């Protein structure tokens, strides 16, 4: 497949007849690749494509677009966003991993793809963080365990004492929502049935309609219903309390070893020259500092997690190991069946 490596286009607003003539001279094709010097002095040599392994509209897409918009000025090149959904992002991630390591093609990484999905799918579908140059962490998106307000259940203590079997809704197989709940219920000794839904919205609808007893969904999705008093937040699964839901304890505070959050980072193919990475890092730093980007985070209830790339890679690898250990220890199988 062809990467958009080089093209200058779309400054043409003139009449169409004229535009064609201009287009032929002003537009570079994107078929033939051109080689870039490895010292990064020529970087960026055209638009830097940011690949997103999710469909437009989801939180990964929103984050990618907000970042691209605010970083392109600092980089001195446009950052077009290309959505390539497929296999929870594995498709796009693998594709960028095999792209030319010149910094012109980047990808947004989801931590769950490296740390949680491998627990649910076969080994050859899994992706490894070592195969990427992580430029910088972006942000953290927290999961919250909610119950229907009508049930009156507000704390973990009430849940454990309820003495009944719970149907818990997850946002899908191999997601943080599933892992967090499965671990929590096993540790708390609650008898639960894992009911996977296709994303957060249907899981929440099922909870609101009392089709299931509890659900774990991403904070931004649950917040409107929590504020409206229709859902009770029980615990959040982040390591520390979430700034947007400061009154809700973490699972760890409630006494359960379940630290699960969705982290995101931006990465380039392995072997991208250090000077290029440096330029990219600086551009994203400027973006993080901009008011527009901060407002975006606040509006979507994301917590900044703008750690250094090397640290991110280390953290995610550690998370992957920890989840694997926890899953074995508590005999949690995300593959549902078996």
């Amino acid at each position, binding site marked *: 497949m062809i990467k958009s490596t080089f093209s200058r286009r779309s400054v043409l607003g003139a009449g169409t007849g004229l535009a064609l003539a201009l287009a032929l001279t002003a537009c570079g094709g994107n078929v033939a690749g051109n080689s870039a010097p490895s010292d990064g002095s020529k970087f960026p040599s055209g638009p830097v494509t940011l690949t997103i392994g999710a469909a437009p509209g989801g939180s990964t897409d929103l984050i990618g677009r907000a970042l691209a918009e605010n970083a392109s000025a600092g980089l001195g090149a446009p950052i077009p966003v290309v959505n390539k959904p497929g296999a929870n992002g594995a498709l796009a991630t693998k594709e960028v991993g095999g792209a030319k390591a010149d910094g012109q093609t980047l990808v947004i990484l989801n931590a769950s793809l490296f740390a949680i999905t491998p627990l649910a799918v076969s080994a050859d579908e899994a992706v490894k963080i070592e195969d990427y140059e992580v430029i910088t962490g972006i942000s953290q998106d927290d999961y919250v365990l909610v119950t229907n307000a009508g049930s009156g259940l507000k704390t973990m203590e009430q849940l454990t004492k309820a003495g009944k079997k719970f149907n818990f809704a997850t946002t899908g197989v191999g997601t943080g929502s599933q892992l967090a709940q499965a671990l929590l219920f096993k540790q708390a000794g609650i008898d639960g049935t894992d009911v996977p839904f296709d994303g957060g919205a249907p899981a929440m609808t099922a909870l609101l309609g009392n089709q299931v007893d509890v659900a774990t969904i991403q904070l931004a999705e649950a917040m409107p219903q929590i504020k409206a008093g229709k859902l009770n937040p029980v615990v959040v699964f982040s390591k520390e309390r979430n700034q947007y839901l400061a009154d809700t304890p973490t699972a760890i505070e409630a006494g359960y070893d379940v630290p699960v959050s969705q982290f995101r980072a931006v990465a380039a193919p392995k072997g991208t020259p250090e000077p290029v990475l440096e330029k990219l890092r600086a551009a994203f730093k400027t973006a993080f500092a901009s008011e527009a980007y901060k407002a975006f985070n606040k509006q979507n209830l994301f917590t900044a997690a703008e750690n250094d790339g090397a640290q991110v890679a280390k953290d995610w690898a550690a998370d992957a190991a920890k989840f694997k250990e926890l899953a074995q220890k508590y005999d949690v199988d995300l593959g549902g*069946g078996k």
Partner: protein
Amino acid sequence: MTSSSRQEAPLGTSTPHAASGTGSSAIEADPVEPLTAEQLAAEWDEERPPHAGPLANVAAGVVTALLGVAGVAMSLSMGIGTPERPEAGMWPLIISLVMAVLSVALLLFGRKTLDAEAFSSSSLQVAAGVGTLIGFVLVIGLTGFEIPTLLLTFFWLRFLGKETWRMSILLSAIVTAAFYLTFVVALSVPIPHLF
């Protein structure tokens, strides 16, 4: 003229027929309206391609039956599980079984139904058309979309559409330019392009 209408033709002709009963014969001599529903139906029927004969349904039945059997085999390898704890293969197994059983039913009872169309020499045009599409996708990644677009349009106009040489050359150039302007210049779609 449209395929959708032709496909509906039997339905369209049967209802007025049923509703009119013998009434339609009364207007046969009418000079203003020489065309009754029946005649129109007959005319549409003539335009329909010839029936393919009973072998077509046998062939279709065999193909879908094989699909069903393959589906059963693959589903079994995925694991079935129990009704309480179904594995991944349970649902595809059920569908594949339904498909296989109905295919056998088609083989047994559907042979007399003449609802398939015979292939004719003009079916080769379709094959040629598909060939150009495959060629189009094969080269689009190497050369960008402009040259294959030009060639495909030209081929369809000149050889499948029997347009004149002049018309075909002119139109294919215009179409290619229009696509370039729409997708590359106006919409900035990251499609492989040469210019």
